[in-house]
């Protein structure tokens, strides 16, 4: 659902708080032929809303139908709301009424208010999904009721439950046709909520191998130092292409995925990154920027401390001369000396 008002937030809570006064006037068949609206005021309002698909404010209604008193207006709006024809939204200037699209309205046919309310809450959560406890908090309905409704909606294939990677026991609900967000599925690195640590390591090694061989070729090229350096760089797009062609991944990896892998190489101290400006439309450039990576050598060999057994000793802090653990009776030291 696209909304042009930037600060519009759905007001799901309002549904449960609004009262639905009993309206009994003659029945009018609307052009849609599906929904019966039983009040002339309501029909007028409905038509007005149809004219403004982006929504109308209270002020617009007052201008358009000056004959209506505040009470009658509220009654008409409430009527439409209860029929599920209208969305109530809030923006910076106040309340906003908007037509619901016909498809959703038709889906919700035969559902009661509570069900609509829950559906609305889930719809608002988008592709991030929402936890059943949060639904309860937002809808003010008892949990048992909510569970019943959720089951009902699931069976109608209006919503689906997705397991989140953040907490394996936490189910989140979202609309049936939505693709779950990366934060829920964990992206390419998760399969069934398990982090594929080996997969990441393999990719990490392959990326490094690629960059390293590139750097070696550059070094052996015997060109001027500047050219050597520049040719040792690879764009993230090049790395991505290499990995794709290698065919080690069954899932489709995006360029961002490869960049996360390359970032781990930076944290391993094996790779450096530079960002350069690129012409718009160059392959592999994002927002006029291109990320360049290259393999580098470490600046020092393993330091002297770790060449002594004490540098790696797990009981270093407990070691004292004359104590239970001491340099004289140290087993690690003895093994190391005889090595």
């Amino acid at each position, binding site marked *: 659902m696209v909304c042009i008002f930037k600060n519009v937030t759905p007001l799901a809570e309002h549904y449960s708080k609004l009262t639905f006064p009993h309206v009994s006037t003659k029945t009018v068949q609307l052009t849609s032929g599906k929904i019966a609206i039983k009040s002339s005021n309501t029909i007028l309002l409905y038509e007005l809303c149809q004219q403004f698909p982006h929504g109308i404010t209270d002020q617009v209604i007052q201008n358009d139908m000056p004959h209506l008193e505040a009470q009658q207006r509220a009654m008409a709006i409430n009527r439409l709301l209860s029929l599920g024809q209208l969305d109530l939204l809030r923006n910076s200037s106040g309340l906003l009424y908007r037509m619901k699209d016909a498809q959703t309205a038709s889906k919700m046919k035969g559902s009661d208010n509570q069900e609509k309310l829950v559906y609305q809450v889930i719809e608002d959560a988008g592709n991030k999904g929402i936890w059943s406890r949060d639904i309860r908090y937002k809808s003010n309905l008892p949990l048992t009721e909510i569970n019943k409704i959720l089951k009902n909606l699931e069976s109608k294939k209006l919503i689906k439950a997705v397991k989140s990677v953040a907490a394996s026991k936490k189910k989140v609900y979202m609309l049936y046709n939505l693709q779950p967000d990366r934060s829920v599925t964990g992206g390419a690195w998760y399969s069934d909520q398990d982090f594929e640590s080996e997969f990441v390591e393999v990719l990490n090694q392959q990326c490094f191998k690629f960059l390293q061989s590139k750097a070696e070729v550059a070094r052996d090229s015997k060109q001027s130092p500047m050219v050597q350096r520049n040719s040792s760089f690879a764009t993230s797009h090049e790395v991505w292409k290499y990995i794709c062609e290698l065919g080690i991944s069954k899932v489709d990896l995006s360029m961002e995925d490869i960049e996360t892998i390359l970032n781990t190489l930076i944290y391993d101290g094996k790779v450096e990154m530079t960002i350069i400006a690129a012409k718009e439309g160059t392959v592999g450039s994002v927002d006029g920027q291109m990320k360049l990576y290259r393999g580098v050598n470490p600046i020092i060999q393993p330091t*002297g401390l770790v*060449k002594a057994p004490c540098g790696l000793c797990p009981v270093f802090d407990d070691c004292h001369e004359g104590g239970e653990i001491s340099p004289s009776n140290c087993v690690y030291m003895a093994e190391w000396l005889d090595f």
Partner: protein
Amino acid sequence: MRGNRRSLRHLSQNSTNSDVGPPTHQRVRSAGSPSCIIQTLWAKKPIKKMTAQEVRLCGLLLQEHFGEVVERIGTHLLRGGAQNLRTIANETNTPLDLVKKSLCVLVQHGVCDFGSGRRGPGSPVEYRGNCERVLRILRYPRYIYTAKTLYGDTGELIVEEVLQRGHMTMSNTVKTVADRLTHNMEEGRSMEYSEVVSSFSKLVETHFLQRCPPVAETATAAPSATPATHRTPASVTPPTAESNPDCYKLPPVTLTGRGKRRRSSDDGEEPGGVKKAKMDSESCGDEGIYWQVNFERFHQHFRDQAIISAVASKLDQTSSEIVRTMLRMSEVTTTPTAAYTQPLSANEIFRSLPPNYSISRPILDQYLSLLVDDPMEFVGKSGDSGGGMYVVNLHRALANLARATLESVVQERFGSRSARIFRLLLRKRHLEQKQVEDFAMIPAKEAKDMLYTLLSENLVQLQEIPKTPDHAPSRTFYLYTVNQLPTARLLLQHCYKTVANLIERRLFETKENKRLLEKSQRIEAILASLQASGAEPEQLTEVEEMITAPERQQLEALRHHINKLDSTENQVDETIFLLESYIISTKSK
């Protein structure tokens, strides 16, 4: 013994062999001929608090080099701060004359300094230990080795002699070194004094040796001078070697002749010593001018070497050669604590490059800009004049080297994935646990485990930021972070403990095999004397076989162990050097 003239007058004269020529190492240890003026300028340096690990290591080093008694006195001084003679004697339960001798040894080696007491003029003289100077003993092999690589065998021996005796006059050094070199040469050849003198002067020119700071000769003026200094304590500065304008000026010495061979026909040591003493008492024109090793200069050299090798492994050989040239050019013009070298123009660098390095000017420019672009920032650009002005970022380089050292420790000890987390935190400063998992791409469970391990080892710190004043865990941010400087300090202490452990183990190994070692020494002595008297080969093999095969094996293993421990001590000292330099460089900012 001239060396001790600089010592203390207030210590009563009790030595018998004073002024009897160049002391052997042993004599330096025990003898003292105090005849000097009380230093009125009591070095008012703030006393650095020493950790238990440092004192332990200092104790071990003192014991190894100067023996039990000096170790006891030295450790007491280091622990207790400045104190007077009587207190030291009482608290260590050592006879007064032993305390005096020990103090002489310590003063001779610069480990201890002295000055008038805190209660003003007239109060007893107080002594204070210098922990850093003791720790230098650990680095002696490296100083000597460096002198050898730079100035050959002669340089090596000069530095070795001066280090072993604390300080010496030039004439004395030259004579001793020439004698030693002659001894090692073939029969009939000997070492010219002039050659040794030229090596000595080269070491002085390059500031590896310097004159000892003059002891203030104001004994007669003391009553008037001391109150003045007390009224203005700000003016009291420790006499440093550098403050002497003649610090690197050679005295005019008249040294001719050549080294003498110690003949085995000499009847023992003593008569030879006396003879030498007589000869040495001839005036050479440099009495009272003593030389010591300039540790700062050596450290500067080590630092430069570390930077050069870092550039070589990060970039390539040519770049390192350029950095080496830059460092050499600014060697004398840059102060030891400077953060940058003096700016050098590309033209100057080009002219000073070693001639066998055929780099054309445009290529040099490319190399320089590559060095400037490198994220390690070893080299910086300070201007555009003269084809571009370049500096070496000394402090930045040290910080980078120290960081690499920390990373390497984490990598070796906790594995490369923990090292990834560690580097990540160094780079991004503050991160939540979830962010660490995401950035490092490590499963939550493992990442948590690694973070907690690093945290418990104090390599990583945890910062709490509560959203509400009640510090409820659910409403608090927990940010992990790495503080490089405190972590470097922590690892430095680990290094001290490690070296102390290695020394302890070495002492233990020697103690365990004491009987065996003594036996092998005895047999070697017998063999040598038999050979000298021209014994039969059968006799020799018979004596040799007194050491059984398993014993021989054991000796071999022991030798292997000691060598390994020794070389590891030196390697750990390299880490100590890097971390110390980094810590000092951040302090001077």
